[in-house]
């Protein structure tokens, strides 16, 4: 079986995802720390052990299956830091994350005294909670399709199960629904980053996958996500996304977002080419209402094929890129 090889490349991809995010965090740390980047300290801030990827081994990382542009992406993410900021007299290094010094004190002042006869009160916040967030439910006019992206979760601050689905439904012609859905275990990795690992199903190529990802907030409040999918046929997919809320006032917000998709190998049946395949961007003007829980929007989307995918689309007489007006809602509860 090829399982071991698949695992290897999956591990490689997961590592890359982790690395990408680490780089982003490291880069922001470096900007605060004038002495330079402290990769080791930052990496340790991420709790790798907590993630369900125990088999991960950086030394055995096999990135052969990856297009090299993947590495460029990690560069891009670390580039989110605007270098050259001058903090003059301030030194904010070490205020966030990092690793405790060897002599850090213990938080335990119990002297071994246990809780008493009445036990211990249960705080509401430690009970499992749930949340649903529909980040997009909208119509793409030129494509005649409904786009959707939704996440639901159940769990605590430190452990959650989360269900996610994204895709589109054609409203004309074949009424086809394309979706990529995943069920994952979710865990915080560091102050602003969370890890996910689970299983996924893609209706576009009718294929199941295992997935891992890192989602979080980069400096300047850029919401980023990076997810890798290893399909049963050995195909590897990498989805990268970034989103920013440019707040005009307390209700009107402009949200630019960009998403990139890469694959590890050609798959002509499904119109997939190796490397970065596709870039989707959208700028939405949203109006937050009902306690910011509902935000209708109008937007403009632009989607373009990248790299070899451009050639393939031309060959098949499809357009290389397209743009559309969009309108829809974003809500959470």
């Amino acid at each position, binding site marked *: 079986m090829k399982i071991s090889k698949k695992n290897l490349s999956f591990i490689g991809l997961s590592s890359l995802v982790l690395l990408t995010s680490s780089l982003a965090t490291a880069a*922001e740390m470096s900007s605060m720390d004038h002495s330079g980047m402290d990769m080791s300290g930052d990496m340790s801030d991420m709790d790798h052990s907590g993630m369900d990827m125990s088999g991960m081994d950086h030394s055995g990382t096999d990135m052969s299956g990856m297009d090299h542009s993947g590495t460029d992406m990690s560069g891009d993410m670390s580039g989110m830091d605007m270098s050259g900021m001058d903090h003059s007299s301030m030194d*904010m290094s070490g205020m*966030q994350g990092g690793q405790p010094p060897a002599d*850090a004190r213990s938080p335990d002042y*119990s002297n071994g005294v246990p809780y008493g006869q009445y036990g211990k*009160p*249960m705080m509401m*916040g430690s009970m499992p909670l749930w*949340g649903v967030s529909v980040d997009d439910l909208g119509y793409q006019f030129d494509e005649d399709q409904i786009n959707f992206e939704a996440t639901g979760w159940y769990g605590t601050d430190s452990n959650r199960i989360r269900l996610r689905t994204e895709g589109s439904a054609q409203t004309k012609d074949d009424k086809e629904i394309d979706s990529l859905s995943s069920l994952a275990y979710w865990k915080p990795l560091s102050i602003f980053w969370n890890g996910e690992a689970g299983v996924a199903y893609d209706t576009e190529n009718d294929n199941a996958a295992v997935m891992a990802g890192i989602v979080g907030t980069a400096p300047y409040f850029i919401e980023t996500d990076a997810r890798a999918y290893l399909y049963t046929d050995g195909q590897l997919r990498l989805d990268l996304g970034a989103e920013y809320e440019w*707040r005009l006032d307390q209700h009107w917000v402009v949200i630019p977002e960009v998403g990139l998709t890469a694959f590890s190998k050609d798959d002509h049946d499904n119109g997939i080419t190796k490397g970065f395949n596709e870039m989707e961007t959208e700028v939405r003007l949203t109006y937050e209402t009902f306690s910011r829980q509902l935000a209708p929007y109008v937007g403009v989307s632009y989607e373009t094929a990248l790299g070899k995918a451009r050639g393939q689309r031309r060959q098949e007489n499809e357009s290389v890129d397209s743009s559309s007006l969009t309108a829809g809602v974003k809500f959470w509860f």
Partner: protein
Amino acid sequence: MNKTMLNRRRFLTGSSTLLGASMLSTLPSIANSALGKGQQNAAVNSDKSDHIVPILTGNEFDLYVSKKPVTVNGKSSMATLINDSLPAPTLKMREGDTVTIRVHNQMNESTSIHWHGLLVPFEMDGVPGISFDGIPANSTFTYKFKLKQSGTYWYHSHSGFQEQTGMLGAIVIEPKGRERHPIEEDHVIVLSDWTHRDPHNLLKLLKQRADFDNYHLPDFKKLLSDIAATDLEAAHDKRKMWNKMRMMPTDFTDLSGEKTFTYLMNGKTTAANWTQLVKAGQPVKLRFINASAQTIFDVRIPGLKMTVVATDGIDVAPVAIDDFRIGVAETYDVIVTPTQDAHTIFAQNIDRSGYVATTLATKKGARAVIPAMDKIEWLTMADMMGALGDKGYKAKHAKTEYDFKSDMRVDSPRMNLDDPGINLRDIDRKVLTYDQLHSVDEAIFAEQRKPTREIELHLTGNMERYIWALDGVMFKDATPVNIKPNERVRITLVNDTMMNHPMHLHGMWSDLRTPSGDFQVRKHTIVVQPAQKISFDVTGEVGRWAWHCHLLYHMEAGMFREVAVV
């Protein structure tokens, strides 16, 4: 008005001891339905001034806890009321008395009452899971304890969110001897925050998006006005640090008056136009109690100097001020001498998204102007980093403060007690600060033994995740803090977060220290400002005691410890 109050008081006292207080609980609803104006079902209409908070006196009390609808801002929703009153009846007791309080739980859920600031045997302290098992549904629990103190205190539920939904009331304990500042007339002013939203859901929403109720988020409008006021570079610099660290410069409160809270004074909205009639030129003592779940208030009475004479039930050397900030669960007794026909008692919340106003009138029907709320400021470098340079305290971080639960650590917190606090720094009026509060009782000074041990704990949080903890450890993962009986311990708190946390230790006094370690003032609840280090000394009182941030949602999120004095 005073006469009818007295009559009512006498009648209520009688009823509570002789006729049985269940009669009492029917009174307000009869009164309401007699008015025959809508909202017949509501036990209390906060928009009208006719509901008078009952005053119960004596040494035996019956409190009936039930779910009843109340009307606030024209909308009704279910509240958790004591004796059908919002706030709960004011309990007037006498120092030295042994009081018996029967709490009748008429709900289908468990409840509890904590006597905030009262030194009682720990089994009487009313914290389910620490001092007793709680009061099960449809049962009665009898509290009995001797009053060892006097002054202004309050009581509230310590179960779930019942405090948010109305279980709060004032306690006034008359001193055995003569008052230090004898004032013929005094009135209780209970501040609270009411929400029609389900508190559980609010906590869930905060966990999902911690800034959803902040209507001071940095925006383009503010950027433009900053550029206009200074220049592009200065405006950019101002934002740089916040953006890089992913912190919020306007993180004053989690839940605001914009969409969540309606603020109440003695259970009344501003619209109720509630008036306390007093005599012109005669000093009156106002006992302010912040019985909110989550709201820090800034209080003033425009045109009147307030002389603060006590805080948290303890007398202080009189200090004349214009404004005071009252953290959740703090109390302040102030003396004012009304001069005009009417004065507005004005309490604006810390983020200026709402206020409540009532009237102190010397002439019936008179009303004074309600002032505009003050402006907000952005939090500063000192709120984030404490003392710049080497002037601060050298914080000793716990090894548990380095993971995802703490979004920031302050290495050199500031120690000064003279900061009025965020949104009060740029105003011209005289604002009370902790360094102006001095206990005066000789007996208290006599108790200021030198501590033999120091316990340092840090107030930590991850704002974006809405995680609140001490030393990065949420209560569910924490061990008790052990103090030996009668041991004198110095507790040092360092606030690693950008929010104010009113910290309350049950069962024993918190003797606040000056930056140099001298005795400042005795309190039961101490507001720790952002990036501030404060120290207070305690003497171990046998029992198990709750210790927590009195912002209810912070407490429920995990900013809580048990102190085991064994």
